[in-house]
């Protein structure tokens, strides 16, 4: 049988028809070999088909891999079944008139499967579809196949798209790294180091281990240099990623803390229910989204925009009520104010727990906030975090403008700097106190809108941020908005940088201890005592 085939092949070679037709004939021969089902003979046959360049090579080989290439026992004719079940002629791709029962799938083994995958990989390198070519390059990069080197180089030579070219080059380097000559390996390593990723690092390290003992030192040095370079770049990327996470955490802290900075700075009282203002804001976001779902399902994506003012008003109103009802009656007694507002926080939490439920409420992330951005290869930043950072900065700038440029801002500054003087100048300090408190609480509510995107909306939401908010305000200096801004970002970044070194919990403990020691060092610098606390 095999002899016959070899003879036929020889005959075909001698006959030497035009290359195309010759290849086509060889491919048809090889098809017949496949139908015969001899596993040993199938391997070269697969190669023949793959190299032939016939248009049906790819579907046939894929069919063989997926068990959809069928042979008719009687005459060893070969047909292709589509995934949907239709049976086609191999060459024309037209529906075949054939009795399905007479057909049997051609069986393969694992060795052939690998051969097929390699063959298909190089076939798809030539696909007219850009995404298919890219995918093929990625696949070859992940599992380098020495037999693909030749088609890869050919594909590289004719490729015009720069992104695909880069992918091909990387795939080629990966193949050479594993299977090339030492010199080629060194060159490939240097090339790969240009596009650092954890995968590249893994490949380089594996290749370094696989180098034979007697390989020349230059190759070893080249690989080591490439590994070092990739490691450095990766560390940089990792640092950038951590830094961004820190900035993101910092912006969340900023949203939670600036309201506190305003009330603390102006009135010198600590509002232990401040975290609950954040919580109310998050629930307002949820409620607004529920309303959109019910009445404006088309605009669901934009419910967050409506939630921001709602959260501001709800939390602001709550803050106003707390100031008028409780805090204004405890003038000059900061410790009692602290205790009373703690009581309010307990009541608010429990009210939400009973009224809405103790379980987490889900706030859906709008489509424009999902996904990620990749400013540099290997650095993926999630969109919602970026939006929150921008949002926090915007809220901060808005507050800054309000304090600097409005009448209320002027009055707030006057009361912060010298309450008694402000009173004698006719500023109604109780009104300023109430408005300041409402403003600070409202901003906390807006912070809740942002937090609803990254944290669980639950009655305990505020508790997780209150301690951090205090730390931010204390770090940044009371009554100093820029200090709060820098304090929040510093704390966020320090927290995230410490996390990989010390673990999340230990990192937090270290930050708290640092705060306690920091206060020892610079109590005056941190606490620009103003407002009520200074007079008490």
């Amino acid at each position: 049988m095999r002899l016959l085939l070899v003879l036929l092949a020889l005959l075909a070679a001698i006959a030497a028809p035009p290359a195309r037709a010759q290849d086509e004939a060889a491919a048809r021969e090889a098809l017949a070999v496949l139908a015969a089902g001899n596993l040993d003979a199938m391997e070269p046959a697969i190669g023949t088909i793959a190299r032939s360049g016939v248009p049906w090579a790819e579907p046939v080989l894929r069919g063989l891999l997926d068990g959809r290439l069928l042979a008719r026992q009687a005459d060893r004719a070969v047909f292709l079944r589509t995934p949907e079940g239709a049976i086609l002629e191999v060459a024309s791709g037209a529906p075949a008139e054939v009795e399905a029962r007479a057909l049997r799938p051609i069986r393969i083994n694992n060795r052939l499967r690998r051969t097929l995958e390699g063959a298909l990989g190089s076939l798809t390198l030539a696909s007219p579809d850009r995404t298919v070519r890219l995918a093929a390059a990625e696949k070859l990069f992940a599992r380098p196949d020495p037999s693909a080197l030749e088609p890869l180089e050919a594909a590289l030579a004719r490729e015009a798209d720069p992104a695909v070219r880069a992918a091909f080059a990387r795939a080629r380097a990966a193949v050479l790294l594993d299977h090339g000559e030492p010199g080629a390996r060194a060159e490939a390593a240097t090339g790969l180091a240009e596009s650092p990723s954890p995968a590249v690092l893994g490949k380089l390290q594996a290749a370094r281990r696989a180098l034979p003992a007697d390989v020349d030192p230059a190759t070893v040095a080249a690989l080591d240099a490439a590994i070092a370079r990739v490691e450095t770049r990766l560390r940089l990327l990792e640092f950038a990623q951590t830094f961004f996470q820190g900035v993101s955490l910092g912006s969340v802290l900023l949203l939670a803390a600036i309201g506190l900075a305003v009330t603390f700075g102006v009135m010198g009282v600590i509002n232990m229910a401040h975290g609950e203002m954040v919580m109310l804001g998050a629930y307002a976001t949820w409620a607004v989204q529920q309303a959109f779902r019910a009445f404006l399902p088309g605009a669901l994506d934009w419910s967050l925009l409506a939630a921001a003012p709602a959260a501001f008003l709800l939390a602001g109103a709550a803050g106003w009520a707390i100031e008028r009802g409780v805090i204004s009656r405890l003038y000059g007694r900061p410790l009692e104010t602290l205790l009373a507002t703690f009581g309010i926080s307990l009541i608010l939490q429990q009210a939400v727990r009973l009224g809405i439920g103790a379980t987490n409420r889900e706030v859906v992330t709008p489509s424009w906030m999902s996904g990620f951005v990749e400013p540099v290869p290997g650095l993926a930043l999630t969109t919602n975090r970026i939006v929150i950072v921008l949002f926090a900065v915007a809220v901060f700038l808005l507050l800054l403008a309000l304090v600097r440029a409005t009448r209320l801002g002027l009055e707030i500054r006057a009361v912060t700097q010298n309450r008694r003087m402000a009173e004698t100048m006719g500023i109604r300090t109780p009104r300023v106190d109430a408005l300041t408190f409402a403003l600070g609480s409202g901003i906390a509510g807006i912070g809740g809108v942002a937090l609803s995107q990254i944290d669980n909306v639950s009655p305990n939401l505020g508790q997780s941020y209150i301690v951090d908010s205090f730390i931010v305000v204390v770090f940044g200096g009371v009554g100093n908005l820029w200090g709060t801004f820098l304090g929040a970002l510093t704390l966020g970044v320090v927290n995230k940088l410490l996390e990989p070194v010390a673990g999340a919990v230990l990192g937090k403990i270290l930050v708290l201890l640092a705060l306690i020691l920091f206060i020892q060092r610079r109590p005056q610098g941190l606490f620009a005592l103003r407002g009520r606390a200074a007079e008490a």
Partner: protein
Amino acid sequence: MARAGLGRPALLLVLVGCAVLLVPVLNRLVPEGSAFHLEDRLVPLFGKYLAYAVLAVALDLVWGRAGILSLGHGAFFALGGYAMGMYLMRQIGPRGVYAHPVLPDFMVFLNWQELPWYWYGFDRFPFALAMVVLVPGALGFVFGWLAFRSRVSGVYLSIITQALTYALMLAFFRNDMGFGGNNGLTDFKDILGFPIASPDTRLGLYLATGVLLLLALAVAIHLRRSPLGRLLVAIRDGEARARFLGHDTLRAKLFVWTLSAVLAGLAGALYVPQVGIINPSEFSPAASIEIAIWVAVGGRDTILGPVLGAFLVNGMKTWLTGAAPELWLFVLGGLFVLVTLVLPKGLVGIVELLPRRRAPAAEPAPRPAEATGG
């Protein structure tokens, strides 16, 4: 301000002592059928209240007297409790679930091979007792020294005490700290050789806590009547002025602060064997703030106030968390608001206001002085 005659503090002690004895009397002397009989299972509950009362007296020493509102006293209480818990764990010996002769169950579970160095010595009661005093005392001393030296006071001090207990809570939640992590220390078997769950042991622990409370009150009474007690009031109302009189206010504050920390630690040590467990939630900032409300409800800077407040608030908590658990947090929160707004002197304050109404001096209402810069 209680300006009592000589006999009154002693009378108060006798009064509290009699109240403490009520529990053993109702438990042992009143026959079981009687309506006034106190069941065995309620003894440790009252023992727990007594420990809380000691804790409240400790907080009142610094808050009521010296005006230092600690929101971290739970930390000292818990540290004392952990020191006692470590002794109780070592007493279990090979009777644990894993029957390891030395290692407590949770260490065996974590695959630890040997006892961490800081667990050494806790198999001996005197050592454990020394730690009950020394660990909270040392932490209080170091923290107080750092804070008072840099003149951190008022709400700032409150906030950093809260940060302190919060940091400790996070630390004790970690398994690799070697204090049982989340679950804490529990499954105690016996104390000083007495089975911990037997009614006799429990009554003994109750009485020991009662004695501690009387001691704490005696200390508080003596402090109030000493020149130091007056100095602390002066520090509370005008620390700078007290400094100008030549008083070393740092030393006075540090002394009463450390004393208070030690008392809190002792309270924690007696609390643990009666409730049978100590875990990191004792360090939670909310638990520490609750202590302040006991004191506020009873009456700050009074002798009986903290004791009364601890019993009332915790009694209400026990009853409400059983009868209507969803209401408890409303009540607790309401207490915080109500007491600060309406009852700044607490319940004892009402009583003290009743009998004495003195005529004010010749010219009342001091005119405010001009605050002009010279």
